[in-house]
């Protein structure tokens, strides 16, 4: 039996019959402390969730390592800690039909949509067979096949763009929905609210997923936001919103399914505030002195999204330590292969400088 943590909005939220709890603070809430646990996953779902999240974790760890070795340069924003958000949401949509768009902390989103780890890692190293032929980098990769629309480096820009992807769905009269991810920092940009207004006005099928990892670079939510409950940010546009425990993949998927159903039915946009946490700095060059080591350690030990699934799998006897080690080894192999590929793939041909400027 699941209860949405909080819902706001003038409309009755789609989870009929459930009693909305009082709105909580923006502090991530462990599932154990939640008023009611979300719907349990099946064995297959938990195993898939474990695998997908672990792929992102190991991939990002490797990317961080390669950055330290000087193989990856420039900006590199790691997704470690937030894996449940994107994997849970992907479980709620139709991959390859529903669109996904996000900001610059985007490697996890790419892997979750099924983009190839080799192509992503080779883009990070700026090589020929990277998704953008080495011309995009960490923040700029795309896949039409997976309906992944980037990868955008201007904070908040993807919110208007994602609203436009949803506009295209409505224009074409299909029932696809668009997942538009952005952070607590981007949530203060003006164009976010311009987009909210048009999305509700035109009933566009877009889910605004605010990944609240509590810090916009070095500025905590409480230092930057007058309204720290991001699920309420659509209130004046009549957009319903919920706060979700973004560290519990079951809660994410369940809220995601509610939001997807709302959008597919033609009710317009929906806001999901995912309360999550990034373990690493904002980017590789961020010493993260704005928070204590204890705070990070507490999140890692008490709320880690992957550990939660691991414990469940073991407790329920759905997997043995050996089974999980095997999965771990498989994932490490995929990641190592991507790293090898990304180091050995040649740089783009010099002629690439002059291609793809205009069609």
């Amino acid at each position, binding site marked *: 039996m699941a209860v949405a943590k909080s819902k706001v909005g003038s409309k009755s939220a789609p989870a009929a019959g459930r009693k909305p709890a009082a709105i909580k603070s923006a502090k991530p809430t462990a599932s154990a402390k939640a008023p009611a646990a979300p719907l349990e996953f099946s064995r297959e779902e938990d195993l898939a969730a474990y695998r997908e999240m672990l792929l992102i974790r190991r991939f990002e760890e490797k990317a961080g390592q390669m950055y330290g070795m000087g193989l990856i340069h420039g900006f590199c924003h790691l997704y470690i800690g937030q894996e449940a958000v994107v994997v849970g949401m992907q479980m709620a949509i139709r991959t390859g039909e529903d669109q996904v768009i996000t900001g610059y902390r985007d490697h996890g989103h790419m892997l979750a949509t099924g983009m190839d780890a080799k192509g992503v890692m080779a883009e990070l190293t700026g090589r020929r067979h990277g998704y953008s032929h080495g*011309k995009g980098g960490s923040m700029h990769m795309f896949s039409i096949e997976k309906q992944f629309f980037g990868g955008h480096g201007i904070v908040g820009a993807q919110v208007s*763009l994602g609203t436009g992807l949803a506009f295209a769905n409505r224009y074409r009269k299909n029932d696809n929905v668009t997942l538009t991810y952005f952070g607590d920092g981007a949530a203060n940009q003006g164009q976010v609210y311009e987009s909210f207004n*048009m999305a509700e006005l035109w009933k566009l099928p877009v889910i605004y997923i605010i990944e609240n990892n509590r810090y916009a670079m070095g500025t905590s939510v409480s230092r930057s936001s007058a309204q720290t409950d991001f699920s309420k940010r659509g209130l004046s546009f009549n957009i319903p919103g919920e706060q979700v425990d973004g560290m519990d993949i079951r809660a994410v998927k369940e809220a995601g399914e509610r939001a997807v159903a709302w959008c597919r039915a033609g009710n317009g946009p929906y806001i999901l505030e995912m309360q999550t946490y990034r373990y690493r700095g904002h980017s590789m060059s961020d010493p993260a002195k704005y928070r204590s080591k204890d705070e990070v350690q507490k999140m890692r030990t008490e709320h880690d999204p992957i550990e939660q699934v691991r414990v469940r799998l073991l407790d329920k006897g759905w997997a043995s330590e050996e089974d999980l080690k095997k999965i771990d080894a498989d994932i490490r192999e995929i990641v190592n292969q991507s790293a090898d590929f990304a180091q050995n793939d040649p740089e783009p041909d010099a002629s690439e400088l002059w291609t793809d*400027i205009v069609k």
Partner: protein
Amino acid sequence: MPIDILMPALSPTMEEGTLSKWLKKEGDTVKSGDVIAEIETDKATMEVEAIDEGTIAKLLIPEGTENVKVNTPIAIIAADGEDATAAAAAPAPAKDVSGVHEAAKNGSGESGSAPAVAAAAPAAPVSVVVASDPAIPAGTEFVSMTVREALRDAMAEEMRRDGDVFIIGEEVAEYQGAYKITQGLLQEFSAERVIDTPITEHGFAGLATGAALAGLKPIVEFMTFNFAMQAIDQIINSAAKTLYMSGGQLGASIVFRGPNGAAARVGAQHSQDYTSWYSHIPGLKVVAPFTAADAKGLLKAAIRDPNPVIFLENEILYGHSFDVPKLDDFVLPIGKARIHKTGKDVTIVSFGIGMTYAIKAIDELAAQGIDVELIDLRTIRPMDIETVIESVKKTGRCVTVEEGWPQNSIGSDIASQLMEKAFDYLDAPVLKVTGKDVPMPYAANLEKLALPSVADVIAAVKAVTYR
């Protein structure tokens, strides 16, 4: 003292209008606030209220009269106690308001020290040499139409042709366009494809770019490009760069269009030429047509183009009429200049409203024995510099004309390219005629001084020809 009622200017750029209906007749008494007539401009039908009180002594302009110039006396009012018949007979002293409206004709501006230039009436059809356009077959019939009509026809034709094309912007649908460019489109294509937005330039430019990334072909109308400055991040960072950043996987087929540059007497924030701004950006195409034919043929090409195209129009040119080829599907190539007039002594390169100054200058220069070759760039990016170089090889001299500011102007770039690619052919330095390096002032005299003038063009041509 009888009072003249003058044809009012009902918009910053109105020069003439149709007196569509009189609501008062001779002998009627009027008081301040009474609606006395309806006047149709190129943008809207407006009611005219009386300011003075008295009796209508005479209606000077019959209803239904077209092309009544602003400030033409249209009626005479006799004040209370005056003999209306006598008032009608006596010539009324004209109110001196000419200075106020002079700046509206900023295309005809010339400074006091300039030689007299025969300024054509701005709205009169301009004879255009389009024969140099290989896209137009010999023997094609031409019809006269305004730039405004040409732009609308281009959009309507492309929307009929391709269901993925839609128009989005402020007041494009119900209002029929702030400048009436989208007139009738809502009725033909419905609100699904002609979409009024909130006043949200940044948001709707991003939304439209997102729709383009998804494969639709939006036409984004900015009420003016001054407001597109709010949206310029989406235009440049999202629309222009995505093709490159995605390694060619994903691009945006999108047109951003609207009036650019100075209108008339609208002040600094509403009078800016963005041509050089956008022409700086790889990934964008930038088109700035002058004639109605070019507006039509190039807008159709822009809509079909798989890239983001900045389509810079000009409010003052909207009402100008030109000959447009009567062809079922008239599409011009983006990136090709048009030789407006051939000549041997000096090359003038211009585009958009800059052409109005150049055209007026070349007649005067011809009278002084200087034979100008006038090139209309039409597309600013990619620029057809080859046509300019070929012309300069012949003339050895070049003057550029534009309304934008001088630093990093289009003329600056042409001068630089000629230095690199045609230095040995130059017999004189390349000179630029531009707007002055100041925010646009409001006062009529200052605005006139801030814009380039026909005299500036003539002076520059004389300088490079050492005359």
